[in-house]
């Protein structure tokens, strides 16, 4: 009798968080161990699968150009370049260059993307004029990221060890071997390969990236 009377009293105590916590802490009295473990595994698969599916969904080109900020500006510029249109038809989509492949770095980048959601809501770049005004700042962000990671996202596909200098033109072969010897990274020369550059990009890169980075060392 006592227990039957006490039960509803304790359940009613406290706010909803306290009640949930109490429910979670209590050992299961009626469910079998097998059901809990099996159910846990199945629920885990569904949740992890769903999480991963969402991650991959936000990595597609369709998702990126779902917003007009990307579709009308950077996507149009990218369509003219070799990473979109080339002889062999192999493509690098937005996320191949702008989202890391390794899980940890990828999660960090996805968390940083919440800032992009904020600016979407604020409408910071919602007209071509606003985008153009911010182009240098946006480009600098990408330059910085590429410089600090030794152009990690480029190197997902482009391997310096696998470059055949004989197949490259004489000019490219010379510049590449010189650049590698000097310890340069891809972005040090290849800015604006997929998007149009901000004004005075060459000088801006030098003052904002090269000089800053080399003063640190």
């Amino acid at each position, binding site marked *: 009798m006592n227990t039957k009377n006490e039960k509803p009293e304790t359940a009613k105590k406290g706010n909803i968080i306290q009640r949930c916590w109490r429910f979670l802490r209590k050992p299961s009295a009626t469910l079998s161990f097998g059901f809990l473990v099996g159910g846990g595994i199945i629920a885990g698969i569904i949740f992890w699968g769903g999480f991963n599916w969402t991650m991959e969904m936000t990595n597609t080109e369709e998702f990126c150009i779902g917003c007009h900020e990307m579709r009308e500006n950077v996507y149009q510029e990218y369509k003219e370049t070799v990473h979109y249109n080339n002889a062999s038809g192999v493509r690098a989509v937005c996320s191949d260059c702008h989202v890391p492949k390794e899980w940890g770095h990828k999660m960090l980048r996805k968390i940083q993307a919440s800032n992009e959601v904020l600016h979407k809501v604020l409408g910071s770049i919602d007209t071509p004029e606003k985008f153009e005004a911010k182009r240098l700042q946006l480009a600098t962000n990408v330059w910085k990221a590429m410089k600090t990671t030794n152009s990690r996202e480029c190197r997902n596909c482009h391997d310096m060890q696998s470059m055949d200098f004989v197949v*490259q033109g004489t*000019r490219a072969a*010379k510049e590449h071997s010189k650049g590698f010897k000097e310890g340069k990274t891809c972005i040090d020369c290849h800015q604006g390969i997929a998007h149009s*550059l901000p*004004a*005075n990009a*060459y000088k801006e890169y030098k003052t904002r990236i090269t000089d800053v980075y080399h003063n640190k060392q």
Partner: protein
Amino acid sequence: MKTGVPWKAITIMAVMAISGLTALSAGADEVQSLRGVQVDEPVVMEPTARPKNERMQRAYRQQPPLVPHKVAPYQIDLKVNQCLNCHDWSNAGDHNAPTLSMTHYTDRDGKQTDAVAGNRWFCTQCHVPQVNAEPLVENEFKSSSER
């Protein structure tokens, strides 16, 4: 079961060795190479797959020099001129690239400037790359230096 000296084998080997030596000494100069040159003669091969980025001869005196490399990836617009990353006087040394001639730093009023003149900004209006392809129509053009 014979266990004696294999005279037959020794004789054959000796004959072969002697004939081989005489042939070697007699015909050393007559070895024919399949490549059409002597085996010890160094041959410089053309790397066929490699585009050569060397300066091209002008076809007439006033011709703007041709561009010996691809220009398609380089942005030239109101904001940016990527040709200048290598060819401007301030960068040419780093890249071992030809510098713009001084006429390109003279503006329309004849004033000398440090930055490339506005009326010379769009390089590809005069300087064009060449494609290694058959001409679409027959062309009898001859360089003025050859006429």
